[in-house]
Every structure is written in C-alpha cells, then in structure tokens.
C-alpha cells in the first residue's frame, strides 16, 4: 500500500485492529449489499462484545447472523431485527441488547456522523417510545426530537466496483446504507466485486469518493436472496 492505493492483500489485513468492545457500522439492507466476507472475517477473529450498527442482523447462518453463533455481538442498533431464531433467543435471555432506531433516523445518524454533525432534530419518533429521554424542541409549530449521530471504530462496506484509490460504485439497490456507513468509520473497509485502475471509473459516477476509504479488498460473493419473488415470463 503506497500513496492513495488502498488495496490490502488479505481479509486478515482488511480487519486488522478490530478488538473486543468496538463499534462496527455495517452497510446492507436485509441480505442485499452486505459485506459478507468482512463479516466472516470478524467471525474468524473471535472478537467479542461488539456493538453493531446495521439496519438488520442477517438471518440464521448468513450475514451478521453468523456473529450471533459465538455470541460476538453485545448490542445491535437497528431498525428491524429478528428474522433469525438465534437473535430472538439471545434477546429473550438478555445476552443481547437492541436499540431500535427508525430506519431514516438510522441512515441520518450515520450520514451526520460521517459529516461531522453531532446531532440533529427530526419529527420522526416524536410521541413514540423512541422519543423517551430525548430533548424535544418545536420548529415551525411542530415538535422534533434531538437524535445523536453515530461513528464507528470500523465501518464495513460492500461495493460493486472500486479503483485502487478507493473510489466506489454500488450496484442497484445494494447501495442502501453502504455510502453512509463508508463515511462514518474511523477505519472504513470496503470489499468489492472488482478492483480497477484509477481512471477507469467515470468520476461523475462515483458514489463514495476514495477519501472515506482506508482499506479495499476484492472478494467473491454468494449474494443470498431473502425473498425470492418471480413472475412467469
């Protein structure tokens, strides 16, 4: 790795420095656009007591769900969880803590975190359990609650293509939370399907500029489908 070249040689190198008790922000929506190999690396590292910030927590045996198998997650910050039996079991037994956060607020917490905004007001969640303990302020005659932004020790991101400088392009709806996650990690690690040379990607089409990316690796992906819905041709 030299200059702006962000490419690392192995998944061990990609996640080096991750330790017990750290906060990891993960891109992905359901199983779509999840950094599946970086998650598998976290499992191999056997780090524990992690706080994971991700819209969902995978399913049994795939995605973030595999980190539940060895009880590596202490807390999830998510908008929708429980598609997995193991998650439910650990939650009910008190081994796992969940901070449920409205999906748009979660996206904005990551965006703001990466953009140096410590907190923001939103009408989302006012009058609901989400507002408990939060400052309320009226703007334009409407009450809003103060939400704090999020930064992670690590951010793990799944892209489609990137150049060696870490400029990333996402594919279809696999974009989802990935661009915000990429901005919000002290160390941002991106895995992609293809790495190209600088200059090969059109600068006007870059979703995540390389300035946000610390480490880049090319992987192969299973891309499991959660709800396979088709129509007849």
């Amino acid at each position, binding site marked *: 790795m030299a200059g702006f070249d962000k490419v690392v040689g192995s998944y061990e190198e990609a996640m080096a420095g991750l330790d017990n008790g750290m906060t990891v922000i993960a891109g992905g929506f359901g199983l779509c656009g999840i950094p599946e190999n970086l998650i598998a690396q976290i499992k191999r590292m056997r780090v524990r007591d992690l706080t994971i910030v991700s819209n969902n927590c995978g399913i049994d045996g795939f995605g973030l769900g595999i980190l539940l198998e060895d009880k590596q997650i202490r807390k999830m910050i998510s*908008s929708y969880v429980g598609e997995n039996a193991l998650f439910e079991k650990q939650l009910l037994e008190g081994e796992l803590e969940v901070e449920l956060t409205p999906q748009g607020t979660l996206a904005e917490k990551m965006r703001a975190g990466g953009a140096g905004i410590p907190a923001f007001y939103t009408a989302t*969640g006012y009058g*609901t359990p989400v507002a408990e303990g939060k400052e309320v302020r009226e703007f334009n005659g409407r009450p809003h609650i103060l939400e704090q932004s999020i930064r992670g020790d690590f951010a793990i991101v799944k892209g489609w293509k990137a150049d060696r400088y870490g400029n990333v392009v996402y594919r279809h*709806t696999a974009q989802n939370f990935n661009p*915000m996650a990429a901005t919000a990690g002290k160390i941002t690690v991106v895995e992609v399907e293809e790495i190209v040379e600088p200059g090969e990607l059109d600068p006007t089409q870059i979703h995540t500029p390389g300035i946000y990316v610390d480490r880049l690796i090319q992987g192969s992906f299973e*891309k499991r489908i959660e709800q*396979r819905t*088709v129509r007849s*041709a």
Partner: protein
Amino acid sequence: MALSREQIAKRVARELKDGYYVNLGIGIPTLVANYVPEGMEVMLQSENGLLGMGPFPTEAELDADMINAGKQTVTTLPGASIFSSAESFAMIRGGHVDLTVLGAFEVDVQGNIASWMIPGKLVKGMGGAMDLVAGADNIIVTMTHASKNGESKLLEQCTLPLTGAGCIKKVLTDLAWLEIENGTFVLKERAPGVSVEEIVAKTAGRLVVPDHVPEMTF
C-alpha cells in the same frame, strides 16, 4: 360484506393521481400497484432506495442486488432512479412523496397510529414506518376495522405504543372509509352491504355519521 384485500387495494387506488410518487407498505398496500387506473402514471418509491419500482422479475431477470423494502426481488421501470437510504428518507421526511399507504394495529381520533409494537410479544422493530408517518402529509391507513374477537381498532386513544402522533387523516378498513377531522372519525363511505349500525357498533372512538353515507361500488 366486508371488503376483500383486493377491494381494499382497489378503493385505495382511486385516491391515486397522475404523476404521484407513492410509497406502499408491506401487505395489502402493496396490492394497490395492481390497480393503477389505465392511462395514469404513478411512480412507486421503496424506502431501501428505489424510485420507479417495477414488477417482480422473471427467472431470467432475477438479481440479488435488486430488491424492495420488503426484501423481495423486483425490477425497475424506465425512468427509475436508485439511491442511498439517507437520500431515500430525505424524500420521505422532506415531504416529497405524494401518498403513503400503510397498515396499522390501531388508529385513534387524534390521528395517532400504532403499528409496530405489541408489548409482551417479540418486537422486531419499526423499520421505516415512523419516518413515513412523520414525513408524509397524505397517508392512507389500511386495516381491519375490528379484531377477530370483535374489538374495535378505531379508538378514542391508542393503547399500544405509537408509531406516530397526530399524523393520520384517512383510514380505510374492511368496513368503511373514514377521515379524521377535529378529534373525531367521520364516516365517509361504507363497504357494499355493510350497515351504518355495524360500523357504529365496531368504532370505539368518537364517530360522526353524516345523513347520507354512500356505499362503495366495485
């Protein structure tokens, strides 16, 4: 007769207007897409980051990177755009979506909605529902009027934890079309063959019944 799922979707579809950007929730709201009137253009927003959602793919079109907010595989229509979750909720929170249709457990006369949490049962989360109800001006809630054992879901005050406060103005149940005005439900239409008396009996919250309540036709 109470409305079928399809009839509920058909009735909601009559609220669509040409050029509307629409977010349809999971379940019955999704069916509304099947009844967009001929000659009308409506663009569907899916909160995972898609505007211009098309039908399910054929086997040949199936793509793991192309899903909707219900995590189902979908396609895009010509003129679609794809963006991040932050951008998606900027549209929603910023009031740019013209119509939002979603389900609920309870609605009350103050326009409060409860749709995500039943204490004592496993709570899976609110997903994007709190952002949707807080951001949209034009929301239609679709739900059954009463529970299986006959308890009204249209209340004076919601008993379940809220999804949003004071944000609902239109409710379509299997029995009636109602609007919420000045702290009361107003009965606007009734399902074919359903009497005003039955609707009154199954509405726990304050209800104004006009002299003439038209019957829906399909």
